[in-house]
């Protein structure tokens, strides 16, 4: 343990309002800590610059999953376990449920939160490609009120996001419009479970009948761990729409995927490997889409 607890302050005001007031009164002074599965690792390694922390664990205003006719609203403080165990999420947002199952082991899933995953902003974060694919929106809250923003574009660069110093994420909203889509998610890590991802893909797709057979009606492809932020392959999606899934399209999308991503060599893997695997997984998704029978 490479930090000294005596050097750190941690308070738990107990309500969202109290936390927001603190963040507003003393901007940049307090680091919010929810489940701690990221912050406490940095702390134990002696790599946490923050000395004053405010606990947002178990705040009632950040808990809960609300199901309305068009939308599912997930409290930012919901844990990965809660995501996996929720019927509607498992059924309608399987990419998010898979991500929740892949993040860490059971003990970390019981503490890690969706909001924490977003704010920690690791390029390898497991839930982020799913949020991109589902076109999630974030509800941000501060003493100044609430605002709703698309998740796309929220992360602007490595560990940088459009979150004001006095803001927290209160909830994540996802539409309920993907029931007749194919949902494809795959994470590649160094081992089967409890591994940081080397490449991660979350994709949605749907076909429609065309003149000569099925063509792609709609497709969203999101990748993690291949750039400083998670990516939507918007160009690939644009090219793919309206086309049949055949060897030509697969070949083209593979090339475009490689061009769109910026993987690196790091302690876990290599840029060349990530590039090749990303191409393979996108190809695999399209091939599954062709055989899926998921038609408008």
């Amino acid at each position, binding site marked *: 343990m490479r930090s000294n607890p005596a050097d750190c302050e941690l*308070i738990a005001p107990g309500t969202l309002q109290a936390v927001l007031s603190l963040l507003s009164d003393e901007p940049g002074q307090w680091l919010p800590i929810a489940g701690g*599965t990221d912050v406490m690792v940095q702390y134990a390694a002696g790599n946490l610059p923050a000395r004053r922390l405010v606990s947002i664990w178990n705040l009632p205003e950040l808990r809960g999953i609300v199901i309305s006719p068009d939308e599912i609203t997930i409290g930012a403080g919901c844990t990965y376990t809660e995501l996996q165990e929720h019927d509607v999420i498992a059924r309608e947002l399987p990419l998010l449920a898979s991500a929740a199952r892949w993040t*860490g*082991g*059971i*003990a970390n899933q019981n*503490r890690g939160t969706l909001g924490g995953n977003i704010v920690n902003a690791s390029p390898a974060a497991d839930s982020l490609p799913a949020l991109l694919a589902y076109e999630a929106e974030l509800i941000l809250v501060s003493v100044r009120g609430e605002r709703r923003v698309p998740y796309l574009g929220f992360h602007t660069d490595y560990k940088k996001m459009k979150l004001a110093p006095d803001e927290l994420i209160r909830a994540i909203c996802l539409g309920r419009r993907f029931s007749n889509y194919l949902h494809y998610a795959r994470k590649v890590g160094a081992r089967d479970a409890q591994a940081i991802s080397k490449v991660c893909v979350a994709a949605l797709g749907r076909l429609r009948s065309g003149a000569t057979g099925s063509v792609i009606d709609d497709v969203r492809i999101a990748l993690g761990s291949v750039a400083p932020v998670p990516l939507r392959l918007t160009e690939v999606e644009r090219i793919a729409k309206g086309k049949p899934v055949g060897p030509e399209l697969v070949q083209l999308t593979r090339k475009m995927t490689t061009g769109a991503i910026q993987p690196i060599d790091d302690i876990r893997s290599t840029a060349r490997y990530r590039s090749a695997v990303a191409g393979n997984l996108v190809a695999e998704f399209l091939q599954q889409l062709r055989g899926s029978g998921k038609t408008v």
Partner: protein
Amino acid sequence: MTHSPKNRGKCEISLMVNGRPETVRVYPMERLLDVLRQELGLTGTKEGCGEGECGSCSVLIDGKLVNSCLIPALQAEGTNLTTIEGLAEGPQLHALQTAFLECGGAQCGICTPGMILAACQLLEKKPNPTLDDIREGLSGNLCRCTGYMQIFDAVMEAARRNPA
């Protein structure tokens, strides 16, 4: 709160541990693992990695498996904790403990407390687990000695003895 140099910054935390109320005076960012081991003398919970990877520090908070090396003491306030010391009822061992003994689930024993608690939570959720359920349920607890085979045997055996 007293402000002597040693106590400055410490706070009082009350929680239930193995069915008993406990109050400790610690820094709020003390790791729960260290609170258990140093303040409460419950050394059954172990440190293997300090980063939430090995699961040796696993305990149950309100029935849920967590890595105590990643929990600041303040966040344990008001919770209900179970450590390995709380599993047996006096001389009567928990079914998992007996099964681990009979099936060779413990070799060096350092991962065993966390592993048994992880198995506890698994059997709570899935009283009749398949081998794959067990593999997945224990995937956050690393064992270097057994190669997991006899741990799986032990969990299957415990499940067999306590039919849901």
